[in-house]
C-alpha cells in the first residue's frame, strides 16, 4: 500500500471518518438549519407536533412582522453598525502601527509589551465594566455609541495588534532593507511597502474586530439604555417580551446574524490563518 493510499486509511478508518463527518454535519448544521426553517414557518406550523414543514407552511410573514413591529431592530442595526465600524476603524488605525513597531522597530521591551497586551485579555469583562460604568456615568456618556465603541477597543485593539504582529514578524527583512537603501524613511516604508502587502491580514483583523463588536452583549447591556441599544440587546429583549411568537423570534435572530455570517464566510480563510499566526508566532 502506498503512502498516499495509506493517508486515507483502511476501510475501517474510512468508515469511521465518514460516520464522523455525518455526525459533524448534523451537529453543526442542525441548529442553524432549524433557525432558518423556523424563521420561515407560520406559527401554527411551528407549534404543531411534529412541526408542519410542508411547502405551504413556509412564509415570509415573520420577517415582515418583525420589521414592522420592532422599530428598535432597525435602530439597533444602525447602532451596531456604527459601534462596530468605529471600533474596527480605530483598532486598525492604532493597532497596525503598534503591531508593526512591536514586530519590526527597536522598541524597548517590545516582546514584553506584546505579551502584556495579549495578557490583558485574561481580564474578565465584569472587572473592567464596573469602573468603566462609573467613569462613563460621571462623564455623562452612558448610552452613547461612541463610548461603547471606545470600550470595545479593550478587546479589539489587542486582538488586532496580535493578528497583525504575527504577520509582520513573517515579512522578509530584505523588503524593508531595500526600501531603506532606496532612501525611504520608516513612515514611508510602513505606508508604501508594508501596508500594501498586508491587505489580507488587515482584512482578517478588520472582520474579526467587526464580528466581535457586532455580537458583543455584556458591555452593551451595562453601558447603553435606549438610544444606543445594539442588535444583541434588541434580540434579548425581544426574546424576553415575545416568548411565544417563535417564528418572529427566529426571524429577528436571522436578521441580526446574517450580516456577520456573510462576512465570516467570505473571509473564513483569512480570519483563521490570521488568528492562528498571531497566536503561534513570537
Amino acid at each position, binding site marked *: 500500500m502506498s503512502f498516499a493510499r495509506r493517508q486515507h486509511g483502511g476501510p475501517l478508518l474510512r468508515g469511521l471518518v465518514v460516520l464522523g463527518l455525518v455526525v459533524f454535519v448534523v451537529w*453543526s448544521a442542525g441548529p442553524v438549519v432549524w433557525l432558518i426553517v423556523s424563521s420561515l414557518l407560520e406559527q401554527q406550523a411551528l407549534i404543531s407536533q411534529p412541526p408542519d414543514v410542508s411547502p405551504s407552511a413556509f412564509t415570509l410573514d415573520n420577517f415582515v412582522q418583525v420589521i414592522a413591529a420592532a422599530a428598535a431592530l432597525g435602530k439597533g442595526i444602525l447602532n451596531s453598525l456604527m459601534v462596530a465600524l468605529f471600533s474596527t476603524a480605530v483598532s486598525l488605525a492604532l493597532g497596525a502601527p503598534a503591531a508593526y513597531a512591536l514586530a519590526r522597530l527597536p522598541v524597548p521591551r517590545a516582546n514584553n509589551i506584546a505579551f502584556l497586551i495579549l495578557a490583558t485579555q*485574561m481580564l*474578565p*469583562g465584569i472587572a473592567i465594566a*464596573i469602573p468603566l460604568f462609573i467613569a462613563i456615568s460621571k462623564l455623562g456618556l452612558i448610552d452613547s455609541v461612541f463610548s461603547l465603541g471606545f470600550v470595545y477597543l479593550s478587546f479589539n485593539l489587542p486582538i488586532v495588534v496580535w493578528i497583525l504582529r504575527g504577520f509582520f514578524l513573517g515579512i522578509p527583512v530584505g523588503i524593508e532593507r531595500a526600501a531603506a537603501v532606496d532612501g525611504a524613511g520608516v513612515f514611508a516604508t510602513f505606508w508604501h511597502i508594508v501596508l500594501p502587502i498586508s491587505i489580507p491580514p488587515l482584512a482578517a483583523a478588520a472582520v474579526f474586530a467587526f464580528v466581535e463588536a457586532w455580537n458583543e452583549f455584556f458591555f452593551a447591556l451595562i453601558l447603553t439604555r435606549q438610544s444606543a441599544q445594539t442588535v444583541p440587546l434588541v434580540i434579548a429583549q425581544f426574546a424576553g417580551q415575545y416568548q411565544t411568537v417563535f417564528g418572529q423570534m427566529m426571524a429577528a435572530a436571522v436578521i441580526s446574524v446574517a450580516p456577520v455570517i456573510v462576512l465570516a464566510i467570505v473571509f473564513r480563510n483569512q480570519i483563521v490563518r490570521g488568528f492562528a499566526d498571531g497566536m*503561534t508566532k513570537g
Partner: protein
Amino acid sequence: MTVTAATFEQRRRRVGLLFVLPALLVLAAVLGYPIVDSIMLALQRVTLTGGAIQQSWVGFDNFQRLFADATFQRAALNTAYFSAMEVVLVVLISLGVAVLLNHPMGRFGVFRILLIVPWAIAPVANAVLWKWILHANYGVLNGILKGLGLIDHYHVWLGTPVSALNFLLLVDVWKSVPFVALLILAGLQRVPSILYRAAYMDGAGPVQSFLHVTLPTIRSVIAIAVVLQTIWSLRVFDIVFVLTRGGPADATALLNFLAYRVTFNFLDLGYGSAIANVIFAITMLLAILYVWLLWPRPAGAKR
C-alpha cells in the same frame, strides 16, 4: 558612517515609540485604569442611590463576605464544574473535528463554512435559538427524542438544576467548538508531511503516527486552545442571561453572572468588584498553570 547609522537607529526607535504610544494610551484608559480602580472598588462600600455613587473604604470586608455568602459558593462550584467540563469537552471535540477535517475526505470547503457559521452567530442569537430548541412544549429537541422513543414525556430541560446547568454547557460547547477546531486545524496543517512519511517508513499505523507525530507537533496549539477556552468559559454570560437568568434556584448562576447581578441589579458595586477580582485571580492562576504545564519546553528538555 557610524554617525548616520546611529541617527538612523535613533529615528527608527523614535518612530517605533510614536507608533506604539497611541495604542498603549488607549489600552491604559480602557484596561489599565479600570483594573486598578476595580481593585480599589473591591476595598470600598460603593452604592448607587438615586443615580449618585457613594463610596467609603471598608478594607477587606467585601472579600470576607465571600466566605459567608452561600450564593457565592454555589456560583463558584457551578463555575468550577462548568469551566472544567467545557474546557475538556471543547478541546477534545475540537481535536476530533480538526482531525476529521484534516483527513483527505474531510477537506471540502463546505465543512469549513459549517465551522465558521456558529462562531459568527452572536452568543445572544445562539441563546435565543436554543431557548426555542429546548422549549418545554414546542421545542424540537423534545419532539425528536419522543419521536425516537428515547423519552416518554416532554421534559422542561431548563427547569431542574442539574439539567439546566448541563444544557447551558451543551449550548456553550456547541458555540465554542468551531473556533477552537479551526485553530487546531490550522496547527494540523502546519505539521510537515515529511514527518508522516517518515513515521510510515518506520511502520507506524495511523493511531501511532497521531500519537507520536501529530500530538507532539501541535502541542503549543493545544496549549493555546486550553488557555483561551478557559478564559472564555470563565466569562460566559450571554447564554445565562437569555436562557435562565441564573435559575432555577441559582443552579446556573456562574460567577460572572453573579458579579453582574450583585453589581447592576443589587447595586452593590464594591461587593461586585470583589467577585470580579476573584474571577480575575482564578483566570490568571489557571493561565499561568497551563502555560507552565503545557508549553513546549525549549530544545534540549525532554518532551
